């Protein structure tokens, strides 16, 4: 193992440890207060990483925002959904606190009929599959990463 590889490995490891620590320190889904369609402060207490957020945005396993929303910034990715509005320029339309409220629980902003899932909620009593019970779709760190990425989506 070369020193460069070892250093890279340690960096990845320390990032992973940092994310785990940030998630552990994060506010719990049931404690998040949404007021006037806003969640004012970061779920982790610190800003997210937009590069990571871009990954969750297109990941079919995690956020998969692209499943429903088009996004010119990721035009190289195949198959953008069109269930929700395109997110080009979304940072001009919503503040960070509003984006956070939508991410945490879209129903609190768009109303109970919206198709958009909440990504930082714990749902009970509705047949949540065992492996997902007691867990939000995204971790607090991932939600903040996606918000940080969304903040880069501005119209020219």
């Amino acid at each position, binding site marked *: 193992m070369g020193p460069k590889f070892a250093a890279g490995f340690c960096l990845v490891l320390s990032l992973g440890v940092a994310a785990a620590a940030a998630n552990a320190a994060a506010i719990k889904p049931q404690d998040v207060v949404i007021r006037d369609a806003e969640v004012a402060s970061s779920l982790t207490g610190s800003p997210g990483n937009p590069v990571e957020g871009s990954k969750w945005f297109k990941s*079919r396993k995690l956020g*998969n925002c*692209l*499943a*429903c929303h088009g996004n010119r910034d990721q035009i190289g990715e*195949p*198959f*953008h*959904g*069109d*269930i929700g509005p395109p997110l080009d320029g979304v940072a001009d339309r919503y503040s960070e606190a509003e984006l956070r409220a939508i991410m945490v629980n879209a129903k609190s902003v768009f109303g109970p009929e919206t*198709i958009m*899932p*909440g990504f930082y*909620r714990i*749902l009970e009593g*509705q*047949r*949540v*599959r*065992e492996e*997902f019970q007691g*867990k939000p*779709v995204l971790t607090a760190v991932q939600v903040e990463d996606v918000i940080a990425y969304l903040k880069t989506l501005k119209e020219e």
Partner: protein
Amino acid sequence: MTMTRTKIALLSASAAGLVMSGYAFALPEGVDTVQVTATAKDHPLGELYSGWHFRTPETQALQQDDFENPGFLWVEQGAELWETVDGSEQKSCASCHEDAADTMATAGAQMPKWNEALGKPVNLEQQINLCRSERMGAEPWKWESSELLSMTSFVRNQSRGKPVDVQIDGPMKPWFEKGEALYHTRVGQLDLACVNCHQNYYGQSIRADRLSQGQSNGFPTYRLKWQKIGSLHRRFKGCMDQVRAEPYKVGSDEFLALELYVNWRGQGLPVEAPAVRQ
């Protein structure tokens, strides 16, 4: 059925289909439409579209011709099983029901039906297995087994082209209402009900998947994703898995109620079994 007759029929059907439907490809073999206007009072949809409508031309083309349609492997196996003696009574389906083309001409369009003895509705899979256990003295087939899929495909194919026509009043009413409630109940970590996608967003895309109205008239359906034919209940399970919910069991009362309600949502659409889908 000869190749020549089918090909000639196909050519004329193609021409008629092109003119009448406005689709790039001819209508699927055996049906005269893939779109009907809802007639039921209080129907939540105006126009009803077969899932065929939402598929790519390549997928549509696979269903256009029975010789190309891979679902016919199961229909053919079902035809053989229809004549096959099994069980302690030494009977086949044909022993009682004779020529399926006559006796099963509408059954596939009208299931689930009320079963007085059981005091509940039964769907086609369940009725086939009731015949096996009660009339033939044979073991019921497992859900999603090759045998049950084949027999279901064969029997429902006899009703191809007939409009879906399920009873929802009388003793069926509570089952219909249960199915309707399930259709509107959000489940799973992704917090979605059938209605959220298949009523409010059909025709639009979730990533590469174009949402249909979730109509059931093509089942059992050959899915390219499965590389085989599958039951409606298997498809229900797949949807529940995708929204990260714990699915009900195939053959459960919940899926039976949902089947009744979903069939009613497609009331009037011609049976297409075996359909081909993505």
